[in-house]
């Protein structure tokens, strides 16, 4: 039997006549049928997801710089005044060879005096003394793993055991403060991310729930016509995935823009803590992962809604 043009026109695209094609077509049609409501929901989702995404971008950037601030942590070992420059430099080399030490720098007694005279108002007073009262010193930069109060103390005690060293000083306080602030921010970020991800999940779940109510008649008709549970549920799963995907794209875009705005002041702050390089832009793969994670979140929300006490859930029982 020849198919008339009017029939072909009414049928539309061939792709809409497979089970999956039909589900996508229904999903798109429903979204397009309420453009304002759909756009608002997607925008809300994007905004809700943008903050956790931004926090994760920042956390990853901070992780990349973990230890940069620790490089500014040093121990200063003061030597006996009787230790000459040759022995002092040899001791600095011995200490530098230790596995828990990154680098050492020997400061001779003369260098110490010159620095003191240049940087201190009391420099002239030293001229009254017959000989240089300042000892030689070794500035020791420990490995990153050692930058903790107990480990630093142990290292300090070990150096004090050496006959050439009379005193060891170090200042961990500012590093500990920085670490405490970063830890606090990290916990806050995890909590905010958790809450907002849950909110996004609820936004999608509520959208699916409303869709279930609005399309109850359609689901019942499909059920009566012999549709399987997967056929009836598939458009709702796709709706969840589409919401999550588009919400994720919006969130990624917003987070990247916000990251750009935060980058300059963050770089300045990092510089103040001895980090030469500023925070790096998030990698493209990390940005691209956001929509995928959004889609997974949308799918989870749809599955949870469909297989919990969904309105009209009895329709899908067989």
């Amino acid at each position, binding site marked *: 039997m020849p198919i*008339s043009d009017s*029939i072909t*026109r009414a049928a539309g695209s061939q792709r809409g*006549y497979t089970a999956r094609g039909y589900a996508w077509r229904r999903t798109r049609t429903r979204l397009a049928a309420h453009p304002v409501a759909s756009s608002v929901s997607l925008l809300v989702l994007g905004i809700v997801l943008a903050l956790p995404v931004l926090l994760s971008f920042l956390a990853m950037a901070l992780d990349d710089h973990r230890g940069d601030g620790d490089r500014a942590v040093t121990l200063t070992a003061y030597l006996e005044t009787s230790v000459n420059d040759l022995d002092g430099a040899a001791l600095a080399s011995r200490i530098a060879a230790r596995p828990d030490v990154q680098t050492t720098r020997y400061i001779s007694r003369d260098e110490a005096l010159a620095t003191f005279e240049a940087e201190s108002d009391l420099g002239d007073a030293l001229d009254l003394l017959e000989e240089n009262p300042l000892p030689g010193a070794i500035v020791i930069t420990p490995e990153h793993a050692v930058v903790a109060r107990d480990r630093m103390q142990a290292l300090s005690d070990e150096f004090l055991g050496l006959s050439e060293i009379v005193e060891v000083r170090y200042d961990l306080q500012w590093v500990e403060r920085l670490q405490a602030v970063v830890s606090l921010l990290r916990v806050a970020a995890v909590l905010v991310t958790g809450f907002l991800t849950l909110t996004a999940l609820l936004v999608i779940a509520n959208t699916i729930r409303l869709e279930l109510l609005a399309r109850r008649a359609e689901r019942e*008709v499909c059920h*009566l016509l*012999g*549709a399987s549970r997967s056929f009836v549920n598939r458009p709702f799963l796709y709706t969840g995935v589409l919401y999550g995907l588009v919400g994720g794209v919006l969130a990624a875009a917003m987070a990247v823009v916000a990251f750009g705005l935060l980058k300059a002041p963050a770089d300045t702050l990092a510089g103040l803590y001895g980090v030469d390089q500023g925070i790096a832009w998030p990698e493209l793969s990390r940005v691209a992962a956001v929509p995928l994670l959004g889609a997974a979140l949308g799918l989870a929300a749809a599955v949870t809604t469909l297989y919990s006490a969904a309105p009209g859930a009895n329709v899908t029982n*067989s």
Partner: protein
Amino acid sequence: MIQFDAVSLHFGAGQTALDDVSFEIEAGSFTFLVGHSGAGKSSLLQLIARLARPSSGSITVGGIDYATLRTRHEPALRRQMGVIFQDNQLLGDRNVFDNVALPLIIGGFRYKDVLTRVAAALERVDLAPFANAYPATLSGGQQQRVGIARALVARPRLLLADEPTGNLDAGMSQEIMELLLQFHRSGVTVLLATHDVSLLQAYDLARLELSAGRCVSPAVAPQRARHPLRGRHAHQ
């Protein structure tokens, strides 16, 4: 084709929809399911379509004993039946073509077959020019014809019709009945629930009568079926 043996259907709070109903309907027959509102007609159709399960008794349709039917096979069973409703249950956001094509999409038919079958079904119900129209733009009779096309497009062996003429005037009811008889003549078993007296008077067909959930007359094929308009007879 359809066999009920001492079937009862109770709801909660002691309500009885069907009580010890037994009957047999042969394949290829056209049977009126008769009874007042609340007599149990819709419940009986729901049991046949496996939308409800009997409280007791056994049901066999097309050789399938429902007692042994697994839940996952129920959709496939329903795909072998056509169902027509009083309110036609068309989907308002889809055109006539998509409404009629739905059982074929559900059944996994290929696009080419969908086109061919829907075109043929719309041709048979005389609605081919309306393929792109939306249900709201059609008359009540046209909507019901779309419903019939949808029920029959997958060529089911059994057609269940629940008051298909309930919302239509006499002329349109006649038109729908003619269509159903036409499909029946091509071998489809039809069970049509109605309480439309004029319809029952106009067509002398087999009847299964329910009253207060009980079967008061088994389905008995009449000698002949009168055609009300043309004065000729359509034999069972």
